[in-house]
């Protein structure tokens, strides 16, 4: 399971494809203050990224690969 939902936190792991975007969407709708952990993500499909943007989700851990620059993280 690439997405693990625990209370108010979703942990995304590995490859998040377009089908996972839907379950992410359904989860985010239900939660009031959802948090998203991206530390173990390799890649997320644009549709999933878009959902994170739409819900302005709080990201608790950023990706550790080059994907992080898409979330405003840069190597100093």
């Amino acid at each position: 399971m690439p997405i693990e939902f625990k209370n108010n936190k979703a942990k995304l792991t590995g490859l998040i494809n377009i089908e996972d975007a839907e379950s992410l969407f359904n989860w985010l709708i239900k939660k009031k203050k959802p948090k998203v952990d991206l530390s173990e993500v390799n890649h997320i499909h644009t549709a999933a990224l878009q959902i994170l943007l739409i819900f302005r989700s709080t990201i608790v851990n950023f990706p550790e690969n080059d994907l992080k620059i898409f979330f405003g993280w840069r190597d100093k």
Partner: protein
Amino acid sequence: MSDSLLEQFIFESRDNLQRIGEILIELEEKGTDKNILNELFRLVHTMKGNSGLFDFPFMTKLLHSAEDLMNLVRGGELNYSTEIADVLLESMDLVANMIDEVESTSSISHGLAQSAQEKANDIKEKFLKSTGKKNQVFGNNHKEKEVEILNQPYKHDNTLDQLFDLSIIPEDACMEAVKIALNGKQIFAIHYSPEEECFYKGEDPLYLVRQTPNIIWVRSYLREEISDPASIDIYRCITDFDFLSFASEEELVEHFKYVLDQVKLVNIDMIALIIPRGDKNGGAIYEDFVSDARNYLEENNIDTLKNATKSLLELSSPKLYFASVLRWIEIFIDYLPSSKDIIEALLQSIETMEPPVFSFKKEAKEMQKNIETEENEKTKEKSDFPDEFLKIIKTQKIVLEKIESIEEKLMRSNILKGVLLSIENGLISLNRAEIYQEFKNIAEKVSSEDFDLLNKWITKWFDFYLSYNAENIIESKKDIQKKTYEKSATPEETIGQVCKQVEKGESPLAHSTSKVLKVDESKIDRLMNLIGELVVAKNSLPYLASKADSVYGISELSKEIKSQYSVLNHISEEMQDAIMQIRMVPVSTVFHRFPRLVRDLSKKLNKKIELKFEGEETEADKNVIESLSDPLIHIIRNSIDHGIEPPEERISKNKAETGTLILSAKYESDNVLIEIIDDGRGIDAEKVKLKAYQKGLITEEQFGNMKENEAINLIFLPGFSTAETATDLSGRGVGMDVVRTAVEKFGGSVSVKTELGKGTTISLALPLSMAVSHIMMVETGGLKLGIPIDSIVETVRIPRFMIRNIKGKMVTVLRERLVPIFYLNKILEIDKPHITNEDDEYAVVILCVKGELIGMVIDKFYGTADIILKPLVGFLTNMRIFSGSAIMGDGSVLLIINPKELVNANRI
């Protein structure tokens, strides 16, 4: 993978290959055209994409290489040459072979896969590598240019503002980019706005952006406000990307080649990235620094300046605007003295607390200014209407010009509707009420027959601007490329999209004609059969009517049935006509296969040949058109091989160096007449005669008496052709027997006209449609038979005594001509004598077979009928004297005679 998907792939690929072949030849003849190149690229790209759905790695690989090569040609990096055409044509042949194999065996054989692999490597070796080197050279040039960048004037790029606001880029990213630029790299700002439906196409824009080479900074954001997240369509892409990269333009264009229309790419000057930011509450201490720094600069005291900057930075809060400027200065200190002007501008910015103004190199700036004002003037001239709108008008004007050449009325009016709609949409977005109202008035008055008013209206309002645009059509390649990126991204999306279509060559005209529904042929055939059944069922009504009258004696009912019948008859005729129309295809579908053949053969034989088409739009039944393919190949091959002379010979004969081969098609009553005309040597009747005699095909007596016309027809004799090929005599003959057999099989005929030294014309006449046959019904020995009307010359009554027996052959004299006669009963092995009328006259049908008259004695004539001919099946196929059967209205089966076979069977 489902079979139907594979079937569709095969079907579509064949269509695509056909079009690709046509385009490749077209390019070679007419030179490179951007629109055609784009179409070519799209076709190959589609095929590559489709092949990727299946497990045909070698096909995909080969198509990929071909696509790369086409991309280079499209980008202008390689000039289209015969060599490229050869390679691409050969590659497409290989793909066609692979598709044939896939169709028959669902896989690709090892041998073919290997040749595909070799071809792909070949393309890489020959073309892709050589340009790769070129790119490197380009790269070096850029470097040299970029090192001098500091001395270049700051160029304010308008397009940059539209792209995105560079101040959103964080300072550290800006600095990193500037440092990279200082090391001689070009920085590109890229805005990628994926289309909404891209998810459905299997695209993942984020992935594409992630893979972009040399990304410095990126941001992704929603391009529209979402008020209610719960109601969104999660599969509609509304995410945009802005990013900076220091990859080369070639790399970026290559990377985004499939979404170029959604990407804006601007080469930015690093100066545009020098954006100091922060809290502007500075103090007096900074002014001291500015004056000190200026002194250090004057004295070229770089180290001191560096130290002063560094220590001041340590003292200042990093959030201040001042600190931000200092950080920028720190970067440029290492690049002194060439960065002196930049540092000066930054120092000024500390004094003014305004963004730095880089106004150095006055002369250069003046120049730049001049160019800009010129451009402004030009745009002012045009400012009445936006460019995009003028483009629409221009395209519509072209379409209007083309409408006149379209004969089909419905199509004309549809296209006109499209034109009006496009202009109307353009005007709506223009928001100019007075023009819009005037246009509406005119739009009501025009019709597909008369749209002069519309033309005048366009001239009145836009001619000036359009002629201005026309002058600007010739643009350098780079300009066009650049414009494509910029234009496709202007905010006026609706208009922009229309323009994109225009740029891609998809004018509304092309669009309206290509609106085609592809239907499996078997479905049409089924419809056809059903209509055939309907005709048969309908034909039973007259029998019923007469039965009602004669058997049951109800003449009222009989009349009613007859009137119902006429309604039904009318409808079924219409239906039949409609279905025939569906099956009609233009001869161009088969003609367009030949440019390739002509090209290849003429190259092989070192001859110069121009192939011309006439009447390509002539339509005939699909089967008829397809039956033409093989005979035409033989004839064209003959014309090129034996007919048209080599250039030297032609010059010595005072002929044009380039031979002409014309393929013409036209209607002739119920037939379509195809002519293959060449201006070559012509056929030498004497040589043909001699050859036929030598081969023992004609007797010595025949040899002596034979007229020229008859002699030429000898080329159709079986056996004649093979002798010709073996000796390669200068006459024609290869496969003419094949031609005649094929054409006659479809109920057509073939004839030759030739003039020695001037050329040859071969004419093929084929029925427009093979679905309905006109026949005459006759009776013989109690059996009803049908005879195709087109082979009947006349029907006569001949007195018994007029038929004479000469050496066992029956003959009669008809209008002072000796006509051979045969008894149908005898041939059909019906053991009954023919019935004569009360005047002791035989009923005789005079047939014309292979240009000769022959009389066929029967018992009775009946009327004519239109029937749907069904070929005989099973064991009956061998009964060649019948071409097929038809079911009549009363349910009986009618056999249709094949006169040619009948005469052969009689050995007359």
